[in-house]
């Protein structure tokens, strides 16, 4: 009989004192980074604090301070509610009352006149530093959940267990993350923490597989017993993981890229139940589990959109939100090219047009080559890009399925 392997999530070698001390040290270092350079992302988030503080819900995604600002709200609704929480809680009100935070920090300001005061900078940087608690939580849970996997492999005689503390430290002291969050100013640490929490749940789920053994004994004398072993995943942790991931997507739609991975993994792992008959496994689709998973995911993902749907003209509102989330009008690449395929594509295109311009041939021939080889290369439209993306995801999906 297969026994149920329960893994206690709190057996680990990382003591809370260690995590607290690391949090304090890193927070001190981040405090020392307060007066460093901050980018326009700082002004963007300050503007969002202002929008969520002063404007009613219906205008959050429409407002742009009379056209004087480009820092419009372009994150999904749950992040907007996060900013609303930051600008509308009792601590903020206390700070404003005591004069430790100036009112101007939370005002709707045009782009040419939005210089933040020292206290405003400190306030916002403090929110990022405190939101890193989620990062620490995720970084703590991730190696703890992997611990069960490692100990299993050690029992099998393979694998080496590294100290879980190393994993935590490598995650939280990542210099890129610190630079991006505490200098350039973003909230990536918090989001990464949520992602790690969701991954932890999924990994825990892999270790909790229950087996139900049903033995049908026939009454005839052939002594053959009809054993059926049914394997199913625990369910709860998968739902938690899916829910956490949906919440993450509702905070930053960038993580939509990971959605196919989650989809196919959970489909196979959670929704299919395996029954073993003699020598082979028989997979059957459990419709009930699929429905439950779908409901949980949709609630977590679309729950944040509900207040916006309940406004007047929900369709216009949703279209505006989608337009803000996916600004295809901005072009294929950012001002500063990221290190991706489209940058190579554009670079090749520009190199080709440069070479063609400098080549010593007549203009008639040049025009022919230009039209034949389509130099410069055409810029792909969003659906083409999405298609290429999905093709690129195929190996990942296959391995997730398996």
């Amino acid at each position: 009989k297969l026994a149920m392997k329960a893994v206690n999530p709190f057996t680990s070698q990382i003591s809370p004192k260690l995590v607290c001390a690391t949090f304090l040290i890193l927070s001190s270092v981040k405090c020392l980074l307060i007066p460093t350079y901050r980018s326009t992302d700082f002004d963007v988030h300050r503007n969002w604090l202002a929008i969520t503080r002063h404007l009613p819900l219906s205008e959050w995604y429409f407002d742009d301070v009379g056209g004087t600002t480009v820092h419009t709200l372009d994150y999904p609704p749950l992040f907007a509610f996060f900013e609303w929480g930051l600008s509308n809680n009792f601590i903020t009100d206390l700070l404003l009352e005591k004069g430790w935070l100036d009112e101007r920090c939370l005002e709707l300001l045009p782009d040419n006149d939005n210089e933040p005061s020292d206290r405003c900078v400190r306030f916002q940087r403090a929110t990022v530093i405190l939101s890193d608690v989620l990062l620490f939580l995720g970084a703590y849970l991730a190696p703890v959940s992997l611990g069960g996997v490692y100990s299993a492999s050690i029992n099998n005689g393979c694998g080496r267990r590294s100290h879980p503390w190393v994993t935590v430290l490598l995650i939280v002291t990542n210099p890129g993350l610190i630079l991006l969050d505490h200098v350039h100013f973003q909230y990536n640490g918090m989001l990464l923490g949520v992602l790690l929490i969701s991954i932890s749940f999924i990994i825990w789920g892999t270790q909790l597989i229950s087996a139900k053994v049903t033995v049908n004994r026939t009454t005839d004398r052939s002594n053959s017993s009809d054993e059926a072993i049914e394997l199913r995943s625990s369910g709860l942790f998968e739902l938690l993981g899916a829910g956490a991931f949906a919440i993450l997507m509702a905070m930053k739609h960038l993580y939509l890229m990971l959605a196919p991975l989650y989809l196919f993994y959970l489909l196979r792992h959670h929704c299919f139940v395996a029954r073993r008959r003699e020598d082979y496994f028989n997979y059957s689709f459990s419709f009930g589990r699929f429905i439950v998973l779908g409901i949980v995911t949709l609630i977590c993902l679309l729950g944040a959109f509900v207040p916006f749907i309940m406004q007047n003209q929900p369709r216009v509102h949703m279209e505006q939100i989608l337009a803000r989330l996916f600004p295809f009008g901005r072009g294929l690449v950012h001002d500063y090219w990221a290190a991706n395929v489209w940058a190579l594509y554009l670079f090749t295109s520009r190199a080709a047009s440069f070479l063609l311009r400098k080549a010593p041939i007549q203009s008639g021939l040049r025009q022919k080559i230009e039209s034949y080889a389509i130099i410069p290369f055409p810029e792909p439209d969003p659906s083409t890009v999405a298609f290429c993306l999905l093709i690129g995801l195929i190996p990942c999906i296959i391995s997730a399925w398996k």
Partner: protein
Amino acid sequence: EICKNDPTTQTADDKTTMQRKGLRILKELVALHTSRYGFEDARGKLFMRLTVLVLDVTIYMSAVWVLAMRLTAGDDTIIANGNIFGLSIGQHRRIWLLLTALTQPAIILIDHGHFQYNTTSLGLALWSFHFMTLDVNPFLRESDNPAARNTSFLGPVIGSIFFSLALNFKQMELYHAPAVFAYLLGRCFRKKRGRSSNENSANNVDQQPSHIIAAVSRFISLGVTVILTFAILWVPFAITIQPPQDLLSFDIKVIYQILRRLFPFKRGLFEGKVANLWCTLSIRPISIRQRIPEDVLPLTALGLTLVFLLPPCFILFGVGRGRGITSTREEHEQNHSEKDIRFLLWGNTSSALAFFLASFQVHEKGILIALAPLSLLALDAPNFVSWFSIVATWTLWPLLNIDRLCEAYFCCMMIFWCTKSIIGLPSSTSKQTRWEVDIFTQWRLFGFIPYLSYFTMVILHVVDFFFSPPPNLPDLIPVLFSVWGCVMLIFSFMVTIWAMFMQTATNGWSSTSTNPLKAQRRANFSLVVGVLCMVYNVAFADSFLIPSISVGLMRLDQWSEKPATEKPAKHSPFCSMHRN
């Protein structure tokens, strides 16, 4: 002088003052600086801060590394279970020591926040301590050369070169000078190793003159080294080239001017509110500045400082001579480097604290000079060193407040505290019992002192933050900081003296007394007598004889000792030594 008349000098006073005060060695670098003026402020600031950082890493951190390796040499032979990070005991001790010495909040805040070059001179001083306490020739390897195990005076010579460099970089190293002088003087009289003790006893009469000759020749070699180093550094200032005849002329007035700049007696007894005895005694109703005439004040300060310096210098002289070297053959053959460096570090801390407490024109930042050697003793007296690091940073608060370094102050303290809490206190090695020189471990009675002092420090911070002083006492809060800081520093000074005496007990100080309990009783007795004498001396300020009598008392039981007999160890009411 170099930059003063440069018309392109647009930046603030601190730059020119700094370049006048330091950088005598790096004269070409100063010229490079002048050629680069005209930068915008941000880049100029970046450049200067980078210079501090580079010098800090190359000179100070390397010195700390070398000394840490030396102080923990031989710890790797101890096999024990590591802590949760899988470290061996030796690694754990080394990491603890390095982290304590390198994350000192006071040093980081002053050098990289307030902007100074202290770490350069402190690093040079630490290098000099390393070389000075070497018993053997550092350039000979034991495997190649049998003479490598003989006592060699090359170490102190190199050390004195480094110390002269440190002294010429910043004259604040004079705080260490008496201790170093006492130790080197003792080293001149150390008997050479490499001869059998039979020869020693047989030719005892003949040994005396050659022993004296050796001592004098060593002293002369040191003197020549120091004078040469000073000459190389100072003479370029005094030589001028007369234009018409193109002759080199030596101008002694420049040297006098340098000395006047280095020691500004006209500035007064103390500058600002510093955790000094004089500042504490200047408040009403004591008002020592009114009671003592102004021209006598420097002499009073000098006298009191000399009195405070007597115990550490006395012990260091004995250490330099290598007390215990003539008792047994094993001790004679021993390499004294390990105990010498510890004594020298304690002695330097003690001497720096003596100067800080009683000297003329002391600046708040002078506490760093006491902190730097002490931070390397974090393995011998962990609780005391941690406590003192925090106290030293705390006394700097009024200065940091003005410099707008409040946030950095709290952040650096937090980093210091949490780093040590993560690494965890390493256990002591088998060679020494558990932290004999750490007063907070040895005297259970004093265990409450760190917590009480932390509580009071927090209270004073809260008072500073929330309350504004009454209008008739505008400087109340900095004065409170300096008075309470002075009290804690006086306590620290006496602890350093106590620790030096305790160190003598653990290292087989004298030939006749090998009973450590006796030595500890002597240490405690000297502490109590020292307290009483200090109080008397400070209260009446007219007699310098009493403290010197106290020093004599400390040695009294040494003179009247009988040969050691086996006595059962009595439990003294003052101490509770725990020996496994």
